[in-house]
């Protein structure tokens, strides 16, 4: 961020007198605003696309009344949620009740900082990228637990307990499944991971095809991440048909809206991490986006990244409208007896593979055969 600020100060003489740290601060605020706008629009459009995809799959039309073919439905939802009176149950724990949605939203929005949108487009290229994401997304657990406990409703309490058990126990497989990408790139920073998948191999440079273990760990990551963000096969915390509506049963108005947005935020984060770590992030296949002039390089890489992320989101929606829901004990059994051992074996496999082949994947070796 400082480099950007210095280049800005040199370019604009007007700013010469202003001390450096205010400029960086201002720049951070501007970037944060851009990211927030992107996050909110994605979450709004995401909810509309979810309902359209649902309609399409279920042989019906989906929202098509508000705006041309239903395009402004998400704005209508937003306005409705803002205007709706948000009730607080009489015997609820008021402070925690109000606090819970912010935890949930902050938990999911903070992870946007590290998402590698383009060649230069990243809010903060932290060198502990993935570790940071793991830490921040576990804030959602606190939010959901608070919501469950503070709304003084037995169904919400059950929903909160389930959420705590589920998200915590799926953090481990998610973490373990991402580490192969870190091993290959040799750094936690997401930009480095994406750059490690670039180069002339094009599509085969992706970590997905690096070796059979990473291929397998992509699917492990995808399932575990779906569980961590309460997507359908694992949407036990807000199970409509059992717990009436899980932890957000007592929420209405914009508080419910925040939970709703944070759910879609999580969805995007999972898709973004999947593309960054396994599908080659913003790398344009067979073409070095960095070589282009500044503005075009970023736009092209941003476009490639977003298409990959959105296809991942669509796949999540597709799975959401197909599978039934697991029971709590089956959920736990799947986490501890299936995902955790599999990810560990997988991790072992990747590290052995890297040791034996000095970090080169199958496509890399084939390419080196042909010189």
């Amino acid at each position, binding site marked *: 961020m400082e480099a950007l600020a210095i280049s800005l100060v040199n370019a604009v003489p007007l700013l010469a007198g202003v001390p450096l740290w205010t400029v960086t601060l201002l720049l951070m605020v501007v970037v944060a605003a851009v990211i927030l706008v992107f996050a909110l629009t994605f979450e709004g459009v995401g909810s509309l696309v979810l309902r359209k*995809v649902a309609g*399409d*799959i*279920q*042989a*019906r*039309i989906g929202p098509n009344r508000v705006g041309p073919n239903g395009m402004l439905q998400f704005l209508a939802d937003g306005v409705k949620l803002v205007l709706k009176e948000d009730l607080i149950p009489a015997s609820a724990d008021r402070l925690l009740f109000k606090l819970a949605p912010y935890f949930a939203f902050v938990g999911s929005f903070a992870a946007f900082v590290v998402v590698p949108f383009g060649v230069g487009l990243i809010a903060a290229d932290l060198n502990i990228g993935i570790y940071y994401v793991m830490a921040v997304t576990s804030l959602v657990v606190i939010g959901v637990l608070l919501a469950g406990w503070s709304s003084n409703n037995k169904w919400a309490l059950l929903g909160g307990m389930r959420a705590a058990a589920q998200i915590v126990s799926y953090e481990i497989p998610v973490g373990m499944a991402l580490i192969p990408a870190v091993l290959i790139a040799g750094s936690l920073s997401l930009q480095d991971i994406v750059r490690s998948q670039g180069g002339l191999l094009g599509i085969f440079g992706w970590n997905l095809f690096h070796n059979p273990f990473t291929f397998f760990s992509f699917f492990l990551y995808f399932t575990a991440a779906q569980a961590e963000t309460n997507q359908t096969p694992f949407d036990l915390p807000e199970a409509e048909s059992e717990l009436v509506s899980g932890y957000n049963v007592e929420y209405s108005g914009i508080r419910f809206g925040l939970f709703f947005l944070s759910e879609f935020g999580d969805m995007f984060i999972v898709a973004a991490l999947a593309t960054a770590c396994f599908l080659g992030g913003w790398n344009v296949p067979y073409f070095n986006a960095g070589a282009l002039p500044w503005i075009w390089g970023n736009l092209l890489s941003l476009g490639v990244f977003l298409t990959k992320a959105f296809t991942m989101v669509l796949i999540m929606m*597709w*799975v959401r*409208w*197909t*599978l039934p829901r697991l029971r709590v004990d089956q959920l736990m059994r799947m986490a501890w007896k*299936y995902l955790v051992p599999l990810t560990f074996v997988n991790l072992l496999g990747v590290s052995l593979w890297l040791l034996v082949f000095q970090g080169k994947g199958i496509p890399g070796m084939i390419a080196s055969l042909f010189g």
Partner: protein
Amino acid sequence: MGLKAYMNDIVEAVVTTAKGMRITARYGVNPKEEVTLQYPEERWEIPEGYRGFLHNDVKKCTSCTMCVKVCPIDCISLEAVRGADKKMVLASYDINIGRCMYCGLCVEVCPPKSLKHTAGYEMASVARGELILHFIQEDAAEIKARVALQVAEVAAKEAEAKKAAEAQAVTKAAEVPSSETESADLSSEAVRAAKEEAGKAGGGEPKATKEEEKKPE
């Protein structure tokens, strides 16, 4: 839980999920699968036997109260007065479609087939009063009054005709004794009383009180 069962679980999970997703994908991909109907714009065509709101063709209705008796929830109310020409005149015929359950028993049992189901089904209303269909626009009491007057006039005409007949009979009786009996319960006073009341009510419609139904002899 041997390793084989463990592996089998995973494989089975993946295979069945994939099969399920293939089906939802097939529906997701081709848009012509939509079956929903955009209600206010498009409406589904109603088959002709459809049991919608009831409609009673008042002219054909002989007010035989069969429909009132057969309705399980008594939502048809009917008032009729016997007219001068011995046929029943409908004073009021209401069906409370708020309570009606469209079972169709009344339509089946209606002898003159005047009560029919229309194809209407959109009658949502704010006030419950609107859900009571009145098939006779005129107020019931007026009809009764008018009918009572007609009956009275006809009775009066008959009375005069009878008096004239008596007069002839008396003259004839002078030559031939006649054994005509006559129950003149309808004396001329009844006619005069009816007219008086009409006069007393004075201007505007002749608001006659609800008169007893006159039994013709």
